[in-house]
């Protein structure tokens, strides 16, 4: 039983650190509270949906920025969507870089740096934050699986 207790503590600490470092926010708690016995995999399901959507959006964004003439409205629409879905699952840092992306891209008249170049940099930041939170969440889910496999139950949120 000791092993389970240790794993449970590890999980609690890990989640706390994710909140502390701003990877996740209160919205993630909301998701956890929606999970119950009738839907024990709700959080994993929603987050998996988010991963799928995000990959697609990031591809679309990369494509949009490769065009001869960039359609900035399209770029903005994609980023807006990404901001929306990341805020829905509580991916706080991803949400923030999306906000920065839109602000930065909107500034049409920044001297010296081409808009597409700025957008490319922003895209890199978004990709970076996304892959960070994705890794963190996958680690989190792994920990939960280990606890359940060891016969333990998940700590209450």
């Amino acid at each position, binding site marked *: 039983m000791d092993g389970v207790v240790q794993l449970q503590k590890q999980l609690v600490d890990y989640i706390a650190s994710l909140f502390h470092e701003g990877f996740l926010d209160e*919205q993630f708690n*909301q*998701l956890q*509270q*929606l999970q*119950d016995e009738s*839907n024990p995999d*709700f959080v994993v*399901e*929603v987050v998996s*949906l*988010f991963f799928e*959507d995000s990959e697609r959006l990031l591809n679309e964004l990369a494509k949009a920025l490769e065009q001869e003439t960039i359609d900035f409205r399209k770029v903005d*629409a994609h980023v*807006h*969507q990404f*901001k*929306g*879905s990341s*805020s*829905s*699952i*509580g991916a706080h840092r991803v949400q923030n870089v999306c906000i920065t992306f839109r602000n930065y891209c909107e500034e049409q008249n920044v001297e010296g740096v081409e808009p597409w170049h700025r957008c490319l940099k922003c895209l890199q930041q978004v990709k970076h934050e996304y892959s960070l939170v994705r890794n963190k969440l996958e680690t989190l889910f792994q920990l939960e699986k280990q606890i359940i496999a060891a016969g333990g139950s998940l700590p*209450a*949120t």
Partner: protein
Amino acid sequence: MSSTNTENWMKDIGVLDLTGVGGGSTSAAKKITALVVDDDSVNQTIHSKMLENLGIQNQVVRNGKEAVDLHSSGNNFDLILMDMDMPVMNGIEATRKLREMGVRSIIAGVSTCTRDEREQKEFMESGLDDFQEKPLTTPKLVSILHKLNKKC
């Protein structure tokens, strides 16, 4: 922590009919129905689950046109959660159309914080009863539901 006790919140906003069968049982409660209108699958899943956990039967559609079509074919809902940015027909157009069709449901606009105040005003003026900023939370949803009670 398990989800909000359905009976409690329902009693709280007065839609639980205590004079019904069994006095206080959920089966006596007015069955509230809702429609989620959102093009994002993550939001669809979350909003639907929130409604479900509050004991509210709900359907999900992907854009304003699907919402309008549903109503054209005779469906009706107590509550509509309307996203703003959607392909084919957005939330502003859809709300306007529904009101034109005589739909009197509570329509709550649910949208990502937009810096465009004009658009938000237009959204409200298209016929919304309420507006909540995304992300939606259970407390925000309950506050929308209080409006339902007032309208009844």
